[in-house]
């Protein structure tokens, strides 16, 4: 080989090393509460090396100015490559734990499983055959507990490897649940001791249920997630790499849920425990290529979600109230049935390509294209299991019997839903000068809703609308029979003749009885385009400034705004020279606006589209309005946002460093209704840490966060055609037929305005919130302000007492959410008692938690150490959602609340563990 070629070949060989050195960060390093960082065989049972970092100065800092940790005192693992035997080792940390206190409280059990008894805290086993570069490493912990975790990796360094892991995560939702059913976790919940459907009356049923609840002990609702994964990585060549992985996630248990009967709300409402039994199987495979100038990734993934509980049937103890029908007994509804999350699949194919252009302004181009799809086609269930014999629709008297307890009552038999996604992302970075980078990027992301629209129409009867809540309620579209709404003699069942032909139903030009009955599913979709340009300019050796200008555009199908645009400008400064540390500051301004706001874009999918508005005298037209004209949903509303971020890392001294971070965010919502005003979130943190070589590390931090969010609404009143609305000085509103004698003003008030509602003006006078709006009057407006405050204090120490090594850490977290409101009690028809109880706000939601961990490690022999562990936790939550629930879980004869809410707790864990090295 010619000598001149050797350097070039060597250079290529070195560069091709890119294909081999791709660290796999995707596979997790599972752990648990006692081992939050997982198991590191090098550090487990070891202390900081008394030789410190070696030949360096006592401490060394990262480029940003944060001190590095002293490495652990590990033995020298330099291999003897001639040794063809396996070098193996391992350890186990095993012993016993004792838990005192409220060990069954939800707060203590959250995401962990600590019980009294034998405990295998962690273990590791490893081996290496240096002559062949083969290895294995197995780690794990909390063996046999719900939060157990394992990881196994084996292979050949720089050639191939297999990684397998398993991780369990328990999630306790509540431990104050009074379950009335057997069969939790399954697809059928059967009442234990109560008569399904209630007894003779709502009052008698309430007495029975209250008695049963008083005798029911509290229990726990929990779900455990178990995840296992297997991954294979291989270097196919100098430039190509392959990987394939599969994971299996299973989740089982129960969580709080809710069920309602009747028309919703007043019909009967009871908490039930939702059974969870799901599996998600994911497979992914990919190819990677890398050479000195180009890299390429190809990734294909598939995900399969399977729900072993297709439907959840539960026996109902309530004596419910039916709605919308005649002739059905309330005690008929002995059970309810949910259609649970459907089996679904998702597929994604992604290709990425990047290329350096060293001769074109040292440029770097990236491109990403991805196609995805999510789909499900579960079989649909019948609207009800009940034959509904004797029941008829009100009005119109169409019999219900046998017409709804069959899948023949559906417009189709399966879901047929599908959403495809498209991603295209292209970026270019140029370095026209040593001190200047310029970059630009375009990103397009689209969801395409390819679902077949589902229409809620019964082919057996031609009726549009739905049975509600197993048939205990109805939301069926009938023609309005109000005088003047339709031609005389129009049957309420006029639409049925069209037999689910929507165009034919609309062609009848018959006014419906209500405007807000859903007719069909809405195929939401959106297209997002992001384009930005930016530049970085380096000032001297240690500073840089950068700026980015970006526009993000959303086009949405069937949302209140077809288009929103958000312009963003961000300026940043990074400096390493001013302080012994680093300063990073950025300011961002975002301005979102867009097209016209349509308060009801869903009209074609609602009964209002079936015919004209029945603006005849005496007809309440409220259901033709979705919201008031000035209302803005916050995700689409205009918004101006200022965000200031700052961080300073400072080396206070050789052994002490500190950091300060600050974020101030102000999002202004100019809309009058919805999320309004300035939503502010502020956050500041201070960190200090001190290192005395390998002897001690002491750290502490404090974080403060605050947030404010405002919203405004209007409690609707009415909008009856042919009526006059009378507005009084205290905010109250009365009404009467146009031309009738006005009602006398309430005592102590005067009449301030009147407003007539006519067929010709109802859209304007009722749709707009104003002082004289019959439907959205200002006097019935309400404001809510939510203020959050959080404080977090953390302290920690590692101290070498010689033979004994101590570690400890403590966190104290305090939180408060304060909700205040303002309103006009007279306008809202509140009694003096109600107004006094409501006051100016709700009781604060508060949370406080203390967690203290300590560990003392000392050797008893070269291969055996003793670790004494202690953990103390206490928690306190006050949440007005649960005020009084435990004492009175059934406050009315048709509402039952079974979750007593979070409880205070304090619990202590102590343990003696032997760390045994092999």
């Amino acid at each position: 080989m010619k000598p001149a070629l050797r350097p070039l070949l060597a250079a290529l060989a070195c560069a091709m090393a890119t294909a081999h050195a791709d660290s796999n960060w995707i596979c997790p390093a599972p752990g648990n509460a006692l081992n939050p960082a997982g198991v590191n065989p090098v550090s487990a049972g070891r202390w900081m090396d008394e030789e410190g970092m070696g030949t360096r100065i006592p401490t060394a800092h990262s480029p940003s100015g944060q001190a590095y940790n002293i490495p652990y005192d590990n033995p020298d693992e330099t291999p003897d490559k001639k040794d063809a035997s396996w070098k193996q080792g391992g350890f186990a940390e095993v012993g016993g734990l004792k838990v005192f206190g409220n060990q069954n409280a939800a707060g203590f059990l959250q995401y962990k499983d600590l019980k009294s008894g034998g405990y295998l805290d962690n273990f590791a086993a490893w081996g290496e055959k240096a002559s062949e570069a083969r290895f294995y490493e197995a780690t794990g912990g909390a063996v046999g507990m719900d939060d157990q975790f394992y990881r196994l990796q084996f292979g050949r360094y720089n050639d191939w490897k297999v990684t397998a892991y398993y991780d369990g995560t328990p999630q306790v939702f509540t431990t104050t649940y009074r379950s009335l059913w057997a069969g939790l976790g399954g697809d059928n919940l059967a009442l234990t001791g109560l008569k399904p459907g209630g007894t003779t009356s709502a009052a008698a049923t309430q007495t029975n249920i209250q008695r049963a609840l008083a005798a029911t002990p509290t229990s726990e609702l929990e779900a455990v997630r178990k995840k296992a994964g297997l991954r294979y990585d291989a270097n196919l060549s100098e430039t190509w790499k392959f990987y394939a992985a599969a994971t299996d996630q299973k989740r089982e248990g129960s969580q709080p849920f809710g069920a309602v009967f009747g028309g919703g709300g007043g019909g009967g409402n009871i908490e039930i425990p939702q059974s969870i039994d799901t599996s998600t199987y994911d497979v992914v495979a990919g190819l990677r290529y890398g050479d000195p100038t180009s890299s390429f990734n190809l990734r294909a993934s598939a995900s399969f979600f399977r729900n072993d509980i297709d439907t959840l049937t539960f026996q109902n103890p309530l004596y419910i109230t039916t709605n919308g029908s005649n002739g059905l007994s309330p005690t008929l509804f002995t059970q309810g049935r949910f259609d649970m999350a459907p089996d679904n699949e998702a597929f994604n194919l992604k290709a990425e390509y990047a290329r350096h252009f060293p001769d074109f302004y040292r440029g770097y181009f990236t491109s990403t294209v991805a196609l995805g799809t999510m789909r499900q086609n579960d079989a649909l269930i019948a609207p009800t299991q009940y034959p509904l014999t004797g029941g008829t629709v009100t009005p119109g008297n169409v019999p219900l019997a046998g017409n709804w307890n069959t899948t023949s009552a559906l417009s189709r038999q399966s879901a047929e839903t599908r959403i495809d996604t498209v991603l295209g992302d292209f970026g270019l970075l140029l370095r026209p000068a040593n001190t200047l980078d310029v970059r630009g990027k375009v990103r397009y992301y689209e969801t395409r809703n390819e679902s077949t629209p589902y229409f809620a129409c019964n082919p057996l009867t031609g009726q549009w609308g739905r049975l509600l809540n197993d048939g205990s309620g109805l939301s069926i579209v009938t023609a309005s029979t109000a005088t003047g709404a339709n031609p005389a003699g129009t049957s309420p069942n006029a639409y049925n003749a069209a037999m689910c032909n929507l165009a034919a139903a609309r062609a009848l030009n018959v006014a419906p009885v209500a405007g807000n009955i859903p007719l069909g599913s809405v195929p939401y979709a959106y297209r997002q385009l992001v384009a930005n340009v930016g530049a970085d300019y380096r000032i001297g050796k240690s500073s840089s400034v950068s700026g980015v200008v970006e526009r993000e555009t959303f086009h949405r199908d069937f949302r209140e705004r077809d288009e929103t645009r958000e312009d963003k400008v961000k300026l940043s400064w990074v400096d390493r020279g001013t302080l012994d540390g680093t300063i990073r500051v950025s300011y961002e301004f975002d301005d979102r606006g867009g097209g016209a706001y349509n308060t009801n874009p869903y009209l074609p999918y609602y009964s209002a589209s079936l015919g004209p508005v029945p603006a005849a005298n005496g007809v309440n037209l409220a259901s033709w309005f979705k919201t008031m004209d000035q209302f803005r949903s916050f995700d689409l509303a205009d918004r101006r946002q200022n965000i200031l971020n700052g961080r300073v890392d400072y080396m206070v001294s050789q052994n002490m460093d500190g950091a300060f971070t600050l974020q101030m965010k102000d999002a202004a919502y100019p809309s009058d209704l919805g999320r309004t005003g300035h939503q502010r979130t502020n956050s500041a943190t201070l960190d200090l840490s001190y290192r005395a070589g390998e002897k001690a590390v002491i750290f502490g931090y404090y974080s403060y966060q605050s947030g404010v969010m405002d919203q405004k609404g209007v409690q609707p009143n009415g909008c009856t055609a042919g009526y006059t609305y009378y507005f009084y000085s205290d905010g109250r509103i009365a009404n009467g037929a146009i031309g009738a004698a006005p009602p006398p003003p309430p005592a102590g008030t005067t009449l301030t305005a009147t407003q007539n509602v006519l067929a010709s003006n109802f859209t304007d006078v009722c749709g707009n919130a104003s002082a004289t709006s019959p439907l959205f009057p200002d006097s019935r407006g309400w404001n809510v302000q939510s203020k959050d405050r959080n404080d977090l204090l953390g302290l920690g120490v590692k101290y070498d007492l010689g033979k004994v090594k101590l570690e400890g850490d403590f966190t104290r977290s305090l939180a408060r959410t304060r909700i205040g409101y303002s309103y006009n009690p007279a306008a809202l028809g509140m009694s003096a008692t109600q107004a006094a109880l409501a006051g100016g706000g709700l009781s604060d939601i508060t949370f406080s938690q203390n967690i203290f961990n300590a560990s003392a490690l000392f050797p008893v022999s070269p291969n055996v150490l003793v670790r004494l562990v202690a953990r103390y936790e206490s928690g306190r939550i006050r949440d007005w959602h649960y005020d009084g629930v435990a004492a009175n879980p059934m406050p009315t004869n048709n509402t039952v609340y079974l979750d007593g809410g979070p409880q205070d707790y304090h619990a202590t864990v102590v343990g003696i563990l032997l760390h045994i090295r092999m």
Partner: protein
Amino acid sequence: MNCQGDAVAALLRAGRTGALSLLAVLALVSGAAHAIPPEAQYVGEKVCVKCHDVEARHFSGTLHAKIFRENPKNALEARVCEACHGPGSLHAPRDNHKIRENLVGYTREWGTPVAEQNAMCMNCHKGGERMHWPGSAHENNQVACSDCHNAMARFSATGLLRNASISETCQNCHAQQRAEFHKRSHMPLPEGKMSCTDCHNPHGSTTRPLLNADSVNDVCYACHAEKRGPYLWEHAPVRESCLNCHQAHGSNHDKLLVAERPYLCQQCHTSPAAHAGQFFRGDQTIGSSVLGGTPSQRMIGRACQNCHSQVHGSNHPSGARFQR
């Protein structure tokens, strides 16, 4: 210890090829100006270890050490120490130890510019999950690879991080998120069941928050596939972004919600023909009922989700209002 003499011997053995090739790679790949003078040559690991025996012992437990020593694929990897620090012939003599330009270092004290440090790492680690590193948020903020990683010892179970875990490493800078994970409802990071990289790719991605998937929802579906649907009856803000209602890291409110129910729901729902627009207040809790209040299922417990329990979407043919 005769670092200088051994260095000369190593120099004769190693030759100039490797040093020149490293320079060529850096020039080709990164465009960064290289600190080490071009006359520097490789001296071999044994020369380094004569002075840096402690570092070598710590390093021996790392993945880099295993790869470089047991199965290097090319000349650069076989250099071990010098694969990352550059050829050491100019650094090895005793009088030259403190001349920073003679070697690539990764600490603040040593002073090698961040761009040059990162270029050394990217010699081997470019592409793959780091394809979007150039121009990424971290690179734009002058974050060095060695701000998060410490390849000189194994501090973490995986990833050669400078702290014991991914979460601790990220929280060195992202202290705000550390506070959020200690709130009443939070993702299980403090409990060791998740890490930041379950949702984010710190090395760069096509999304602004450095997500490891194409969209927020795709990230969430990795664990919450039951929400993926698509459902027969969809809930618009859910389909577009989970973050419309949820905080990603932690929240003072139940279920990581952005605000308390029912008020969160009322920021979109005001229907005049039903109850969504009603004013809900303190006399409607069960606690108030004993004092004359009227309890409302829209305030108690799960509030709106007492009835609208299938809030993420429903596959029931009657599920347009998410009650079944």
